[in-house]
């Protein structure tokens, strides 16, 4: 690790619990680099997570951090943001945490367009509880609860975020790290609800179940299967099956929740 980045970590909490080849460290590193590039005041940042392998990340990060319950990070974060609007609130969550048990909080945070940045560590599986399929496990993929292949249709989390009202939406992967850092930077600078889906690797469960047991193979899969938003526009639905579309999907402005909230207080108090 670069010496200059050490201040962002709780060095005494390392080594981390993640398996060798896990993508969680890359996503966490990308977040730290984005914060460093933007020279944000680290004492004005609050990082909130749910429960899962990915949600362990804030435990290693030297910021104001809050580890909450499974699926609820966004609800806690909403409370923090309303109580302390001056803080930059970042939510780190897993695909299960965000889209299964916490799916309701996710769509409502999008809908409100509250100024929170959410980074979804998407390893396509419940890593922590040993590899059950999640709402983001691709159709046909294998999981401990789907030994003959998953028949549940998966969410496209970026489309979901867009449809639900988020105003910055991007997808990157742990293979395309400089780009991932860029997306996180843009999300952090965005006013409103921003979502970065970081497609990650879980060699231990997703990999082993899907004949991608080595971390290198999983990285190669990310490299070979990713297509940019631009390229995807010219591809047919069939050509896009099993592809990971990466890039920015949405970057628009819309009234932000906390600001609207403050405005209505002022109006109600006759200050306008």
């Amino acid at each position, binding site marked *: 690790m670069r010496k200059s980045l050490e201040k962002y970590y709780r060095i005494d909490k390392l080594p981390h619990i993640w398996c060798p080849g896990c993508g969680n460290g890359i996503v966490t590193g990308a977040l730290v680099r984005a914060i460093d590039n933007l020279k944000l005041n680290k004492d004005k940042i609050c990082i909130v997570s749910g*429960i899962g392998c990915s949600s362990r990340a804030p435990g290693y990060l030297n910021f104001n951090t809050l*580890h909450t*319950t*499974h*699926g609820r990070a966004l609800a806690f974060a909403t409370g923090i943001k309303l109580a302390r609007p001056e803080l930059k609130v970042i939510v780190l969550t897993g695909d299960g945490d965000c889209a*299964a*048990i916490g*799916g309701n909080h996710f769509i409502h945070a999008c809908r409100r367009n509250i100024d929170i940045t959410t980074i979804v560590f998407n390893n396509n599986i*419940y890593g*922590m*509880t*040993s590899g*059950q*399929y999640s*709402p983001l496990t691709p159709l046909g993929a294998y999981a*401990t*609860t*789907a*030994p*003959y292949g998953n028949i*549940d249709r998966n969410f496209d989390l970026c489309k979901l975020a867009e449809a639900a009202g988020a105003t910055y939406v991007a997808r990157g992967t742990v293979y395309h790290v400089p780009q991932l850092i860029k997306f996180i930077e843009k999300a952090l600078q965005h006013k409103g609800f921003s979502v970065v889906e970081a497609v990650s690797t879980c060699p231990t469960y997703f990999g082993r179940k899907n004949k991608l047991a080595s971390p290198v193979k999983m990285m190669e899969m990310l490299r070979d299967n990713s297509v940019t938003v631009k390229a995807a526009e010219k591809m047919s639905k069939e050509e896009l099956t099993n592809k990971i579309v990466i890039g920015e999907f949405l970057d628009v402005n819309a009234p932000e929740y906390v600001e609207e909230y403050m405005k209505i207080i002022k109006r109600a108090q006759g200050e306008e």
Partner: protein
Amino acid sequence: MKTKVALTGNEAVAQAMKQINPDVVAAYPITPQTEIVQIFSSFVANGEVDTEFIAVESEHSAMSAAIGAAAGGARAMTATSSQGLALMFEVVYIAASMRLPIVFPVVNRALSGPINIHCDHSDAMGLRDSGVIQLFSENAQEAYDNMIQAVRIAEHPDVRLPVMVNMDGFITSHAMDVLEVLDDETVRNFVGTYVPEDYLLDAKNPISMGNFDMYDFYFEHKRQQVEAMKAAREIIKEVGKEFAKISGREYGLIEAYKLDDADVAVVVLNSAAGTAKGVADELRAKGIRAGVLKPRVYRPFPQDEIREALKGVKAVAVMDRAETFSTCGGPMFADIRNTLYDLKNDIKVVNYIYGLGGRDLRLEHVEQVFEDLENIRKTGRVDETVKYLGLRD
């Protein structure tokens, strides 16, 4: 036919579920329960059971789906631990009040926060007033046996209530144990086919469930639940006797271990009962008349049996693996002291909170408890009513 096998508690429960072959299982993973449902889902995938398995998106949905299935006349199950049970809280009350015989294993784990994954009974105790029957299991054998009996208890026409089958997280769920399993046919004959009384989508008898219930009838319905709980006491005993015929193991509401002539006794649930019995044996060899009472059924609370079992004892220690924060001791302590009050014979009852968040209960701890009880018996004096075992100062 009976076979001796080596299984973990989770494997034993999954095995029982396979033999019961329920119509619907809905679940969400959580440590240390995950394995039960995961193993069971492989039985489903391999066609070894006829069950519809639903991998829902949370425990709230798991119990809700089980309620839906049971309301439709199906034999439905789920399983969980800790936070999962806490999230189910709302709908467990619905299952009980709708009188749906859902059987669900709970692998006991401490509630957050702080977050912890190890054993204590705070999860189960959080639902002791929900109207579900609560069975506790000392080891994998009892967890297996309780699961099979739970189906009959839950579905009995005089009961019709959900049954929660508890076992200790990791200690029982993950440790390999030797137990005797029955053959599939014996289990299937024992549990029989579920014949619901009323159910949805019965074209000849359309009904509605979960209706609004104001001050005119709500109270009566709650009272009926109490009656069902009362009836359950007898039914649990009957089912236990019948189970003895197929297994050779008889179950009642409590297990009274060397209590007949005991001077001092420990009351404790689940796996720690094994530890306590071991210590009692050692003390008996030294001439101390020690005994152990293990409630197998915690809800309904077996008051009469407990009073009978403890009436001759001079000093009793209730060991609770959960706090109430009442500042007056643990949950079972309150129940036991209340039960003994009517005897009016001045049994000294003290409380020990132990093992929160998976803290080990060591033989020395239980020896200390018995030593304290002996002192209380000899001096007739209690210095401290509620104590904490194995806690740092």
